[in-house]
């Protein structure tokens, strides 16, 4: 229980330890703690930001989806309209083409009829002449009776 130089020794230890702790132990430990605190705060902030961004993105996606739906509906309506138009156009074109073909056929038929008529006339004339010859038992001079023949042919 004597007070002696132990006191001085202990004081020296005291300051030496404090100096060492202040220099080499406290700063790295407290820095790590601060850094971790900052990291956690950053992480929380980032999570919050992410949540907010997700909400925004969801909102945007919803909007975009609605827009896309509207566009699709527009496109479909347009397509329907266009298809109707095309059908109408095709109908018109087909009708026109049909009319044209019909007209061409009709004129051809008329032509054929006329030609057949002509041939028939010639043949009838020939038959008539032949018939007449047989009746008359003589030849008919075509030249002589040309006018008669023509008249006949015309009558047929």
């Amino acid at each position: 229980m004597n007070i002696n130089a132990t006191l001085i020794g202990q004081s020296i230890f005291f300051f030496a330890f404090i100096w060492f702790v202040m220099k080499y132990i406290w700063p790295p430990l407290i820095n790590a703690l601060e850094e971790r605190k900052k990291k956690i705060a950053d992480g929380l902030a980032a999570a919050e930001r992410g949540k907010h961004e997700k909400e925004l993105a969801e909102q945007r996606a919803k909007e975009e989806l609605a827009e896309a739906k509207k566009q699709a509906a527009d496109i479909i309506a347009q397509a329907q309209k266009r298809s109707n138009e095309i059908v109408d156009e095709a109908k018109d074109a087909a009708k026109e083409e049909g009319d044209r073909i019909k007209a061409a056929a009709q004129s051809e038929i008329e032509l054929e009829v006329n030609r057949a008529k002509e041939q028939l006339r010639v043949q009838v004339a020939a038959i008539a002449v032949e018939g007449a010859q047989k009746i008359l038992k003589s030849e008919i001079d075509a030249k002589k009776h040309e006018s008669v023949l023509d008249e006949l042919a015309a009558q047929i």
Partner: protein
Amino acid sequence: MAGGATLTSGEYIKHHLTNMTFGQIDGEWRLAHTAQEAKEMGFWAFHVDSLAWSLVLGLFFIWLFRKAAKTVTSDTPSGLQNFVEWIVEFIDSSVKGSFAGKNYLVAPMALTIFVWIFLMNAMDLIAVDWLPQIAAWIGHTAFGADPHHVYFKVVPTTDPNVTFGMALGVFWLMIYYSIKVKGLGGFLSELAFHPFGKWGLPVNLLLEGVSLISKPVSLALRLFGNMYAGETIFILIAIMYSAGWSLGLFGGFLQLGWAIFHILIITLQAFIFMTLTIVYMDMAHTVEEH
């Protein structure tokens, strides 16, 4: 019980409460063989046991925390780092709670004081005879000393030199920062003109002087008193072991109970020393209003 039947209870207690003292006696430097010799060595003597244990425990603290500080990471901490961080955070919040100024010394000092004093106090929990017996055996076999004259006190904080050594360290830092922050004039005027203004100068000096001096004294004596009393009770309980098996068994229970209670005391005393240090440092940094 050290030395068996050759010691009386009184001698046993006295033996346990005497430090291994190294000093000059009759012109030669050697260990004191008796408490009387230790006393005669005067001021220039050292308590080898106190100093050695305080140094060893301080180095253990430094080693443990340095080990954690070297590999410290802000990512997932390891077990040791977790433990160290827990203490550091506790100290940091204590310092932030009581210390308003800006000083990079205070928190490391608080950490050192808390852990170091806790470790020194914790030596109290080792059964009182173990280490002194080992020391006596080593002293006897290795150095041929009379085992009864090998004194070995293992709890440094039961040595007033140790507690005063630390309290005076705090005291000098307190004065240093008082003068640094307030200037020499500010420091002296706080002593002279507070709390009664300049007409109460002598009373002021007396009051402030006493309160200044009482700070380190109360720091040192509180720790010393608590630990010395605790140690003495352990020694008294240990005496029961030599008084028959029934009393010995009773003593065993007492020792267990006292040790468990003592865990609270050693932590509390370390904490009080630390907190008061922080508060004193805070007082040194704040200019008091008149």
